[in-house]
């Protein structure tokens, strides 16, 4: 009864605990890239991929190197070494490095994929949602499988939010929005309404 199941973690991360609509993370790229559905989908997919992979990677590195009771450094040294304070730097470095790596691989492997996705990759390094997901995973003490579920869910939830926003914004172009509210202002308010809607999902994951 200690940890929620894989599926609950996944579904909750997408709907009830949506990383953007409930935890405000990833707003940066969200505001900038949610103007067209096409680009939103592209960025969304890239985020899902990076978020899942880096959650897994960072989990391994956190528990393997930093956490005093489980790290291999502790075991090698014979005494517990608490390096948890380095988690911020480690996570960012891994995320940035991973994105670079993916960029290089995609560029070599598939020209068309690079054209389609390549543009978004540097935007992901600055996406706080990914770093945020890693930090939450540590705070909530998820095990490996649940961390992967959480990373996947967060990415999917983020993508759901940005694609929904993009489709709304495409229609908003034809509305008469007062000038001071255009762009960022109205996006904030629409996001608020979306957040309200998502609260309705509470209790959906059966107890």
């Amino acid at each position, binding site marked *: 009864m200690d940890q929620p199941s894989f599926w609950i973690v996944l579904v909750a991360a997408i709907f009830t605990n949506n990383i953007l609509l409930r935890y405000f993370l990833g707003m940066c790229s969200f505001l900038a890239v949610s103007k067209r559905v096409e680009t939103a989908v592209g960025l969304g997919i890239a985020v899902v991929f990076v978020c899942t992979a880096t959650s897994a990677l960072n989990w391994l590195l956190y528990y393997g190197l930093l956490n005093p009771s489980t790290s291999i450094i502790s075991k090698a040294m014979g005494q517990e070494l608490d390096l948890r304070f380095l988690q911020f730097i480690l996570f960012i470095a891994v995320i940035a490095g991973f994105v670079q790596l993916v960029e290089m691989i995609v560029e070599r492997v598939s020209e068309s994929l690079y054209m389609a996705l*390549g543009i978004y990759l540097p935007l992901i390094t600055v996406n706080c949602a990914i*770093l945020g997901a890693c930090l*939450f995973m540590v705070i909530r003490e998820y095990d490996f499988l649940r961390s992967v579920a959480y990373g996947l869910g967060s990415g999917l939830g983020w993508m759901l939010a940005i694609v929904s926003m993009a489709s709304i914004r495409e229609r908003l172009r034809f509305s008469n929005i007062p000038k001071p509210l255009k762009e*960022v202002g109205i996006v*904030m308010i629409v996001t608020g309404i979306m*957040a*309200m809607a998502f609260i309705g999902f509470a209790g959906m994951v059966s107890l």
Partner: protein
Amino acid sequence: MNGQGSDKEKPTLKEDIRMGRKAMWAGIVMDNPVFCQLLGVCSALAVTGKVVNAVVMSVAVIFVTAMSNVLVSTMRKAIPRSVRMIAEVVVIAFFVILFDQLLKAFWFDMSRELGPYVGLIITNCIVMGRAEAFALQNRPVPSLLDGIGNGLGYTAVLVAVAVVRELTGSGTLLAGTPLAIVFKAGQLSSETPCLLQIPIPFEPSQMMILAPGAFFTMGILIFIFRAIRPEEEI
């Protein structure tokens, strides 16, 4: 990218994309101080449920921005251009971790309330933006002041949102501190101290404490701000 483009007939599409997207991100965000300020606040909206949390968060940002500005400025002649962004991140991370550790040691409850959001200051656009745009070209003392100034700008927005949210959402101000003021008819809670109780019979709106409240408040603040100063481009 090295400036060898003149050897080839025309830069390939790939190179165009590479140059283009760096410009895109920089153009939209970093070169646009108002937008950057806005984004910097966004993730911290999570802590605007209580004014005291917003204040501590703001102190963190002022501290990190000012100190990393000073350090980057002091080292500015020594930092090799090619790795300057990485160097900036290392410096910023240093101060963020420092603040986080101090908070955990001396105000553990607040550290738990702020959660991962202190750590997320590392990705905050404002901090990085000032280091890159100002500290790298200026002396330490002006950089310090620039950092404090920008930090205060952030504080103003964050605390404004928090005041609105706490007032309309819980009917209190500064709950969690000895200076708490309770506005609704009814008590904060039996164990926490409060300074003043002003019984106004209004029912606080639950929604303001939850996420949508933050988004709405932010949207309305932006609306007011831009209505007053239309020349600011976002």
